[in-house]
Structures are given as structure tokens and as C-alpha cells.
């Protein structure tokens, strides 16, 4: 019998799980085959090593924190637990996305965004990016008069803040420092941290994704691509609120820059105090989403 056939039984032999007759054959083979003997010794050794690992228990403090986070999230999202639809991907087809966007606008109709266009054709939301226009790359944007973004507060669901996704189209060529500065100085980031909770993210994440994609289409860029990127990023962590997107350059490469807010892990307050910035190359995204990630920043 060849070594290959014996090797299939080696683990069970070492672990004592082989029937006696078969075990005898393996034992006889090991006496004549140095290679298999060496393999069985390694298997025996690893068994001893693994057996030395005692079961680990969750520390009580960790359990208390997680339980509190569950209670907090559960209480905030209680209405959504009954009606939360599964988070399907948005990136099946452009037609599907368009239909979803129209349906969301008709059904929800709760958020009114006025996107103002500057004389150079760029889109800005100065109310949301206040504090940044005088510094850093955003100062290159043509300014718009205050209040151009209108939000009818009366139409917003109670509990939802007036912070809306920010979408820009620019030729800014960021470097790592410039990008960090942009997000560090964003007032909208601070407002999200102060105002939003996990419950908001659970309940309104889809709304923000769709609004952002719609706005990108209005700006003349590929809304479907943006929505696909956001869905790809959030599929492993659905409770991430997209609040910023920009078509820009990063070290000379055309990219989409996406800002998301998430809950601070292991924080019982369940506030969205964690910000992620993803820089993704649309040219590579369809072929291999993972390879399209150019830069990632997480700030807590």
C-alpha cells in the first residue's frame, strides 16, 4: 500500500481513532517508512501541543460590556428588529438601482437635498463641510451661499439628525496627510459622533446609501459604482453609515473617497464614534474589489 493511502489514516491513527485491524497495518508501515514515521511524530507532537491549550472563557468584564452594548442596541433598534429587511446588495443592475432609488424617493420622501452647482460645475455642500472650506483641499472649491442646502426638518423622521451625505466632485489630488486633515476637520464627522447611535445606523443606513448614490448620479459620476463600493465595504459590517463621498485624485490616481461612521467597538454607549475612510480605484473594482482598495483609514 502506498504512503499516500496510509497518510490519509495517519491522523486517526495518532489520535487513536482507527479500527484495530487498520491501525495494525499503519503501525507496520511506520516501521518501514521513515517519511510517514516522521509525519506521525509531528502529528503526535502537535496533538500534545494543542491539548495543552485550556478552554478560554470570556472575561466577566468583557461579557458585561457586550451585554450592555446588546441591550443598548436592541432598545434603540427595537422597531427595526421586526421590520428590518435583509441587506441585499444594491449592485445587481443599473436598472435595479434606478428603480430602488425612485422607490426610495417616493416611499420615503423625507429628506430634501438641494445640491448646488458652482460656476465651475463642482458640487459642494458648504453647510456640512463648514470649517473646511478655508483650509486644505476643499478651499479649492467654489463657495456657495449659506443655506443652499435645504432640509425640511418637518419631514424628517423624529430622532434622525439633519446630517445628510456629502457628495463632491473634485480634481483634488490628495496625499495621505491631506486626506487625514480633510476628515479630521470635518464638522459633519463631529456631528455624527455626537448625535448618531447604532439605532440610527441600523434604521437609516439604506437611506443614506441610496441618497448618496443618487447624488453622485446627479453630479455626473457613476452612482452605481459608488453604491456598489459602499455595499462591498459594508457587507461585512452592515451597520456603517455612509456620510461622505468624493470623486477625486489620490496621489494622481482617480479614485472614489468614501467616509463612513460606525459604532465604537466594545463601547456601551453605542455611539457612532468610529470613522472609516476608504479610497478605492473604480477601474479595478469590477474585476477584483479587494484589489481596488488603495487606502484605508480608521479613526476612533
Amino acid at each position, binding site marked *: 500500500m502506498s504512503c499516500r493511502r496510509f497518510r490519509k489514516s*495517519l491522523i486517526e491513527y495518532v489520535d487513536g481513532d482507527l479500527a484495530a485491524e487498520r491501525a495494525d497495518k499503519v503501525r507496520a508501515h511506520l516501521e518501514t517508512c521513515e517519511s510517514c514515521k516522521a509525519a506521525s511524530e*509531528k502529528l503526535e*507532537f*502537535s496533538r500534545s*501541543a*494543542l491539548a495543552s491549550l485550556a478552554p478560554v*472563557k470570556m472575561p466577566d468584564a468583557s461579557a458585561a460590556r457586550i451585554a450592555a452594548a446588546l441591550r443598548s442596541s436592541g432598545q434603540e433598534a427595537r422597531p427595526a*428588529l421586526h421590520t428590518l429587511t435583509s441587506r441585499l446588495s444594491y449592485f445587481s443592475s443599473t436598472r435595479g438601482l434606478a428603480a430602488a432609488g425612485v422607490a426610495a424617493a417616493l416611499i420615503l420622501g423625507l429628506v430634501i437635498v438641494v445640491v448646488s452647482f458652482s460656476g465651475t460645475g463642482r458640487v459642494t455642500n458648504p453647510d456640512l463641510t463648514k470649517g473646511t472650506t478655508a483650509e486644505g483641499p476643499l478651499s479649492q472649491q467654489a463657495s456657495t451661499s449659506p443655506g443652499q442646502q435645504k432640509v425640511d426638518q418637518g419631514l424628517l423622521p423624529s430622532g434622525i439628525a439633519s446630517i445628510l451625505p456629502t457628495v463632491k466632485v473634485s480634481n483634488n489630488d490628495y496625499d495621505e496627510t491631506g486626506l487625514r486633515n480633510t476628515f479630521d476637520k470635518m464638522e459633519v464627522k463631529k456631528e455624527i459622533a455626537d448625535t448618531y447611535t447604532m439605532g440610527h445606523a441600523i434604521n437609516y443606513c439604506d437611506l443614506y446609501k441610496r441618497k448618496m448614490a443618487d447624488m453622485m448620479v446627479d453630479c455626473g459620476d457613476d452612482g452605481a459604482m459608488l453604491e456598489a463600493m459602499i455595499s462591498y465595504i459594508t457587507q461585512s459590517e452592515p451597520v456603517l453609515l455612509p456620510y461622505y463621498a468624493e470623486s477625486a485624485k489620490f496621489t494622481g490616481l482617480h479614485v472614489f473617497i468614501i467616509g463612513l461612521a460606525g459604532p465604537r467597538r466594545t463601547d456601551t454607549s453605542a455611539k457612532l464614534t468610529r470613522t472609516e475612510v476608504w479610497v478605492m480605484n473604480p477601474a479595478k473594482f469590477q474585476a477584483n474589489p479587494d484589489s481596488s482598495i488603495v487606502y*484605508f483609514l480608521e479613526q476612533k
Partner: protein
Amino acid sequence: MGEPQQNGRAGDDAALVSRAQAGDLTALEELFNLYRNQVFSLAYRMTGNVCDAEDLCQEIFLQVMRKVSSFQGRSSFSTWLYRVAMNRSRDYLRRKKRSPELLSQEGDPPEPHEPGAVAAGGLENVAIASEAKRIVQEALMKLPLSLREPLVLHELEGLQYHEVASLLRLPVGTVKSRIFRARIKLAEVLEPHKEQWR
């Protein structure tokens, strides 16, 4: 760690799950208490440190809370929970891999040991045992994910081959082959420290 079916009897699980699906937060909390050690053990073996394991556990149980309504009872709750845990674990490690600066720093609390260990062998034996465990855990983290997953599930979490195969959506033969390779590789990584186990 025991077999999945030893944790939370199936009948009791079904009642709790049913209540959780109806929005009963108390039931969710009971499920958390029933399975927290099991999930933490898996998270710890996959991430290699307590801090990341805690983060991952929170993500897992929050996902359970969000998705429990989609559990249809085609498998045991324990199996479903393991599947959620494995998926979150992969995503968590993938995110960490993209951002090495986010990996937890050294200085995590030591792995808890059995309370009787000190009395049984003295502090020196406890220190040696702790060092051995640390070495093995570090060696585990050196295995590629494709080998670490089946090894942890079968050897440390006590799942049978067919259960691991079902969880990882692999043929049983592939699971056995990967565990074989994982144990060989583990032995090779631990070779310089072999004296710890003599």
C-alpha cells in the same frame, strides 16, 4: 470545549430563539450567556488576543441580534451561530490585514487558567504552562486562515469532521487534508520549543 450540542439543550434553544425572533431582548441576552464562552473561545483562537476577541465577539452577537429573524431552524442554533461567528471572524481578520496599524498592541491580559493550577503545581509550573500556551497560540496565528479554521473548529472547538465540512462548505476529505497539513505545519513551527512538551 464541548460539542456544540452540549451547549444549551436543543429544546431550550428553540424556545429562546423563538422568543428572540419575536424581539424579546431577555431571550437574546440568555442566548448570549449560554454561548458567550463558546464564541469567545473561537474568536480568541482566530484572532490571537483577548482585545480583538472581545471586539469580534461584540460584532458576532450584534450580528446575531440583527439576523436571528432569518434563522429558519434548518440546522441547530449552535451550528447557525458558528456559521455567523466564522463569517464575522473572516471579515474581521480581513479588515485587520488591510490595516496593520489597527492590530491590538502587546500587553493583553494573559489567558485565564484553571483556578486549581496554582495549588496543583506551584507558581513555576503555572508560569511554564502559560508560556507553553502562549507559544502554541502564537504558532496557531502563523497558520494561514484556510488551515487555522478547520484546525481550530475540529481540534479545539470539538466539532466533528462533517460539522466542520458543513460550516466551511468544504468536502470532508478536504477538511481532513487541511487539518493534516495544519498539524504538520504547527509541529514544524513549534519544533524549536519542543522541550516545553517533554
